[in-house]
C-alpha cells in the first residue's frame, strides 16, 4: 500500500466516535504492554458499524427489518459489554481528533498510544466535544505538543482513509498484523497468538 507504513508488529485502527473502538482501546493497550511490542495507531472516520435504520417499523421490508434487528442488537451488545453511557456517542465529528492522531504519529510516535488513550478518555468519559479545537489543543499541550501543526492534516487523513479502504479495513476497530486485516477486538487472542509465535493451541 503506497504511502502508508503498516510494518509495525501491530497496527490498530480506531474511530474516536465509535463505541466499539472505545471498548477496544483498553484490551489492546493491555496486550501491547503484555507482549512488550510497539503498536502503531491509525484513525478511521467512516460510518460506525452499528447504524440503525430510521423510519416506520410497520412498513419496512425484510432487509430493512433485518438491519433494524441488527442495529437494536448492536445497542444491546454495547450495553452488555460497555460501561454506562456507551450507547450515547459523544458530540461532534471525529475528523479533527483523527488529524491530531496523525500529527502525533508523525512527530512523536512514542506518544501515540498515550494520545489515543487520553483522547478516548476525554470524549467518552469526560464527554468533551470532540471537534472543539481548544479541547484538542489543550490535550496536545498537556502532552508537550503545543507546537503541533495540523495544516495539511486533512489531506493526509484522506489519503490514509483511501489506503485503509484499499487494504480492506471496513470498520473500526481493526488491526493489521503481518499484512492481514482483523476487524473487531474479539480477534485479540488470535493477534496475541500470532505475535507470540503461534505456539500452543490456537484460538477458535
Amino acid at each position, binding site marked *: 500500500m503506497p504511502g502508508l507504513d503498516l510494518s509495525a508488529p501491530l497496527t490498530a485502527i480506531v474511530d474516536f466516535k465509535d463505541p466499539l473502538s472505545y471498548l477496544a482501546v483498553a484490551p489492546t493497550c493491555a496486550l501491547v504492554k503484555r507482549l512488550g511490542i510497539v503498536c502503531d495507531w491509525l484513525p478511521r472516520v467512516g460510518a460506525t458499524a452499528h447504524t440503525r435504520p430510521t423510519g416506520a417499523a410497520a412498513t419496512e421490508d425484510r432487509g430493512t427489518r433485518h438491519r433494524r*434487528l441488527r442495529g437494536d442488537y448492536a445497542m444491546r451488545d454495547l450495553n452488555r459489554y460497555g460501561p454506562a453511557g456507551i450507547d450515547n456517542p459523544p458530540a461532534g465529528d471525529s475528523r479533527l481528533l483523527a488529524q491530531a492522531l496523525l500529527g502525533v504519529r508523525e512527530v512523536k510516535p512514542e506518544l501515540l498510544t498515550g494520545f489515543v488513550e487520553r483522547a478516548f478518555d476525554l470524549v467518552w468519559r469526560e464527554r468533551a466535544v470532540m471537534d472543539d479545537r481548544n479541547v484538542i489543543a489543550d490535550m496536545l499541550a498537556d502532552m508537550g505538543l503545543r507546537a503541533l501543526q495540523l495544516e495539511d492534516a486533512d489531506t493526509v487523513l484522506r489519503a490514509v482513509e483511501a489506503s485503509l479502504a484499499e487494504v480492506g479495513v471496513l470498520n473500526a476497530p481493526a488491526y493489521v498484523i503481518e499484512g492481514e486485516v482483523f476487524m473487531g477486538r474479539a480477534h485479540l487472542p488470535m493477534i496475541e497468538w500470532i505475535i507470540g509465535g503461534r505456539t500452543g493451541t490456537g*484460538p477458535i
Partner: protein
Amino acid sequence: MNDFNPLVSDRPLIVYIDFKSPYAYIAKDPTRELAAALSIAVDWRPLTLNIPSYLGSARLDDTGNVVESNRSPQQWSGVKYAYKDARRYASLRGLTLRGTTKIWDTSLAHIGFWWAKRQGDAALARYIDIVYERFWKRELDVEDPSVVRAVLMEAGVNVVGFDDYRENDGRTQHDQMQSAIFEAGVFGVPGYIVEGEYFFGREHLPRIAWMLRGRRGAPPDVAYMAATRL
C-alpha cells in the same frame, strides 16, 4: 410448532446454526466442547438465513467469475472479508471451507435437521457433522432431496416417512419457525440463547460460559478463544 418458542428451551443453551454459514460451521465444535466442559445439553436448531435480504445476492461460474450480482461494493467487501476471516480460523482446526458459487437454499437440509433431531442427540450430531463437512468441501448438494435422505441414512437416522414429512409437515413447520425466529429478533448465526438473551457470534462464548457457570468473577469480554481457556 404450537409449543415452539424461539427463545425458550428445556435446555440451558439454544444454538442456532445454518449449514451455509461458515461462521456457524467453525463455531460448532467449540460450542460442543464448551457444553461438554459444563456438562450441559444443547438445544440445536436450524436458522435458514435469508442472505439476499441483507447482503445482496450473487452467482459465480465454475471459474469464480461473477455472472450475476446485485451486491454493492461494500457488501462484496464484507462477504470477502467474512470468508477470509472464517478460513483463517477454520485452518487452525483442519476444516476445509471452499468458496461457493451461489447462495444455497438450505431449507431442505434444515428440514432434515428437524427430522434427525426427533431421533436423538447422537443422530442429530452425526447428521450435522456429515452435512457441514461435505457441504463446505462442495461435495454435497443440499437442495437435492435424495442427497439429504442419503445423509440421514448414513447418520443412522430412520428415514421411513421422511419424504412425506419434507414435502408437507416438515416444510410447513420449517417456514413457520423461521418466521417466528426472525420475529423474535434472532437474525444471524451462530446464535446463542442463554436465559432468554440472544448472542450473535462465537466471540460471545466466554460470556456464555460465564453465565452458565453462575456469573462468578468479572464478566469476560468478547473473544475468539479456545474452549480449553473458557
